[in-house]
């Protein structure tokens, strides 16, 4: 996959963030940006035909860079946490305001 394609994914995410009027869609957009960033880093660390960077039988010839893979696992974990937290808050907002439209909930004063 071309690294430029991952930029397209990231830009789609930013487009979604700056246009969507629904909290759920905003959460999805953040997730999309994050997927794009992860793909970008994995792409840059990957070598064409490189083997898995685990010491063992396959550990011969050219090997992919292990650091991006280790880092991106952490990013995925953090990302899932953020998504879970955001969705939880989204449910709570829905319980208090009865809607998940940004405009509606930001316009109102105190929730119930």
């Amino acid at each position, binding site marked *: 996959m071309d690294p430029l394609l991952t930029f397209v994914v990231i830009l789609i995410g930013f487009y979604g963030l700056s246009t969507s009027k629904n909290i759920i869609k905003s959460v999805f957009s953040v997730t999309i940006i994050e997927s794009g960033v992860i793909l970008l880093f994995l792409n840059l660390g990957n070598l064409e035909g490189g083997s898995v960077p685990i010491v063992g039988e396959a550990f011969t010839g050219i090997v992919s860079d292990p650091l991006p893979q280790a880092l991106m696992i952490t990013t995925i974990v953090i990302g899932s946490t953020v998504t879970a937290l955001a969705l939880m*808050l989204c449910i709570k907002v829905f319980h208090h305001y009865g809607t998940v439209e940004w405009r509606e909930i930001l316009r109102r004063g105190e929730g119930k």
Partner: protein
Amino acid sequence: MFLIPVYLIFVPVLTALVIYVFKNKHINYLALVSQVIVTVLLVLYHNEFQGSYADTLFVFGNWSERVGISLVNDEISVSFMFLSVFSWWMVLIYTFEKGKPNHNFLFFLLFLQGVFLGLLQTNDLFNMFVFLELMTIIVTILIAFKKTGDAFRAGIYYVLLNTAGVLAFLMGIIFLYNIFGTINILVISENMHLVGDETAVKFSYVLLMSGIAVKSALFPVFSWLPRAHGVAQSAISALLSGLIVKGGLYVFIRMNMMFADANLNYTDFFYVVGALTAVVGVMFALSQKDMKQILAYHTVSQIGIVMMGLSSPHDTEIFYGGLLHIFNHALFKSLLFLGAGAIIKVYGNKKVADVRGVMRTMPFVSAVMIIGMLSITGAPFFNGFISKAIIKYGIMDSGIKYWILFVVNIGTATSFIKMSQIFFGPQTITVRIKKRMQNVSMMMLALGCVLLGNFYIPITEGYFGFELREVSVTTWKNFFDYFLALSLGFLFYRYVIAPDYKPVRYIRGYQMSFEGSNYVFVIFLVVMTLYFVVF
């Protein structure tokens, strides 16, 4: 001795876990124990390495420096750590009540301390990202802790906007890794002069800075801050406004140190951003009616003033003025938020117009609040005066920069003249419960304000290792400036703000929508790219 940085991170985190697991009546005291341990360790560490921070590099697991996770300290990070431990003491004392079942709150509070101390010490870009993101998550939970609709709304606004910013930060890290093959900050800054002109380096700088701009609430993307700090509990607001926002500014200092050898001229750009932040923050603060909103918007404007200082190169007086203003702001803004919290608790009302007679009802709280207000407006012999005077000293030569700061000072004076109305008037309410612990923490903060305002020279030399003796602060001109700003502020309040004209009402009603602030964030990114990369 070398393991102390690790203990500083893990003692609060592990204590937090223990408190959460054994939800016991007496386990709350463990928080104080961990706080004592952290303080003692920090003092030991400071005494050991004072003056020679060159060999504080600690690499986990004896890996090579280029791939291992490492921690390192210098004067700035150690003084930030002292500030943060002090702030946590104050918040813990303020919120501590005997036998109150607030284990969840203590869990997040102590966990946040560990994460923040980690952010200050890390020498690894990816760990910096992890700590920033962890901070975002925990702060979101603390904002939403009151479980009202307002709090949840502010929480989701905060978490999504900040995550987008931190992901931009991560993208910058990826570019740097692609260029240098390492994420160790020291190694990168040593090799920066080799590639200082590359477009990719500049672009990574832009991405890192846009993430930091969101985290530290700079001009176009500050809309989350008043929302979040206005609705959180007062103790949490004090911590967020006083310290957590400064995490972003700390990363700003670190990144600029890392990019010191790159061919980037950031001074003018960030001075303009800081000035805009300061002016816009003051403008919004003037129109607000809610006490906590006023204080939250003043955090934005004070961050702008700090930014005016920090945007200068690292060995100038003005940079140290900005750094000192971070510390001063942490003291007086925590004090103001804690005091406002005590007042709101007694009166059950946040509106400035409805609260009267605090001086008679709560004499102690109003005394410390007045100290805080004098500090934030920059009265002589209080700490705000010192750092503002140092920043002024640095920009004395250029007229426009000086006048911007003066305008911000007038605005600050105006809105605290407005807020000081709450002290006057007859007593309307009698206080039933006296909270001694709250008074202790507010008194300590007020004492800090006065001490830093008068004995700043030995303190800055001991902790920043920087001489400020040649900067003349207590001049008649500065005194005159303060009283001029105060009187102009009074006139401005009397004739413009108090009648509540239409523009003021318009600014009060203006709210940036969520998609709008993301749009502005993208535009900010593009503008920065144009400024730093293309031209």
